[in-house]
């Protein structure tokens, strides 16, 4: 349904009754979403609730078995899927760890240019240099010829982050991007993400279990439970004790605690925003 004076293409993501089924098992069903350009959404849910499946469908790497999906105002088709994927930066170690094994790190980053898993023919020196610059920014400049499976979990995560930024994406789908990162790498990426999110045209969906890390940055939240949309709306409205107790199906309490955190000093070498956007 389109509201008056509201263009369909205003939505970066529009899902109607989206579902995904493998055999007789429904992994996702009844997902209705409308995400506007420049919005920042948190995707929240317990293990196995379908977060990664949803993100992989939104990224064009899986196809829904029910419902309709439009990304950038168009459904994914055989003709446009690669072009659409190039506009999306997707990070998901739980997805890509099942696909990548012995591929060289540089090839994986370069594959981001094509929106595919592997590389292609048209790799220019500018592409190569951009990929190396991204790897350098993530501290992997000396690992570019190593195979993916020889890296630590945190290093693999950084490779996927570099891959996601190969095309300077308009839509960022980050599936637990802090997973495996050391404390300084996490702080540096959080800082970069904050800067990127200040740009009005970047839409971000962020899957995380660590709500304290991200809650303030994300104005909207999707709560998934057992493959269904439990709730969606403004983050501050959803993260209330009553709402969360209902979501977790047991009483929960929210505490604000003073935390000791480690972050790079103010004068540290920051990740340059220009490299990523």
């Amino acid at each position, binding site marked *: 349904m389109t509201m008056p004076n509201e263009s369909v293409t205003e939505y970066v993501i529009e899902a109607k009754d989206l579902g995904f089924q493998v055999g007789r098992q429904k992994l996702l069903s009844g997902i209705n979403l409308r995400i506007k350009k420049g919005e920042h959404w948190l995707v929240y849910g317990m293990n196995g609730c379908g977060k990664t499946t949803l993100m992989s469908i939104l990224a064009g790497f899986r*196809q829904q078995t029910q419902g309709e999906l439009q990304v950038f105002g168009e459904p994914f088709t*055989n003709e446009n899927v690669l072009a659409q994927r190039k506009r999306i930066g997707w990070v998901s170690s739980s997805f890509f760890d099942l696909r990548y094994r*012995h591929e060289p790190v540089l090839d994986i980053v370069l594959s981001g240019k094509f929106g595919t898993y592997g590389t292609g023919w048209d790799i220019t020196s500018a592409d190569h240099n951009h990929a190396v610059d991204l790897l350098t920014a993530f501290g992997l400049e000396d690992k570019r010829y190593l195979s993916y499976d020889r890296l630590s979990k945190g290093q693999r995560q950084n490779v996927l982050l570099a891959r996601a930024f190969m095309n300077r994406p308009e839509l960022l789908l980050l599936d637990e991007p802090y997973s495996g990162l050391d404390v300084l790498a996490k702080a540096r990426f959080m800082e970069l993400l904050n800067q990127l999110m200040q740009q009005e045209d970047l839409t971000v969906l962020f899957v995380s279990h660590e709500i304290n890390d991200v809650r303030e940055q994300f104005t909207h939240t999707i709560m998934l439970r057992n493959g269904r949309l439990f709730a969606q709306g403004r983050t501050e409205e959803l993260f209330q004790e009553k709402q969360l107790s209902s979501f977790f199906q047991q009483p929960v309490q929210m505490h604000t605690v003073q935390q000791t955190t480690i972050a790079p000093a103010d004068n540290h070498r920051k990740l340059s925003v220009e490299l990523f956007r």
Partner: protein
Amino acid sequence: MQKQNEKRLDVLKKRVQRCVCKSCGGPLSLRQLDYNEFEDARIELFCEHCDKLEFGIEPELYTSAQYYVDEYRVNFYPDMGNNQMTRRMSISYVADIMNWAMQHMGYLTKEGFTVAPDMEGKILQECIVLNDQMADDLEKELMP
């Protein structure tokens, strides 16, 4: 867009018949990675031997790179030791450079070489079939 995507799949189909893995020199295969209707996005070139996605390289370039690495005992990864893995990584590295050079000199396109390569026999490691007389002569020559 349709034309562009058709080209990608066509290119992959041609490469699988013509090209080899730049690490091991083995044949490539087409592998479907996802179950969906997007044919152009779900198929990739794959090396079964190395168990990895591999866009491949012209076999003549692989052979040249392999000869170069073996003959000149090149190891670009001395920190990782002298082993089969570093040998393959070095061959892959040299093959990449050769591929780049050929491409930028205009001898190589995504359809293959624009000029038919005329390679030295020793690089190709050609087999020579000897008859009994030739074998006897060779034996006398080597062990007088």
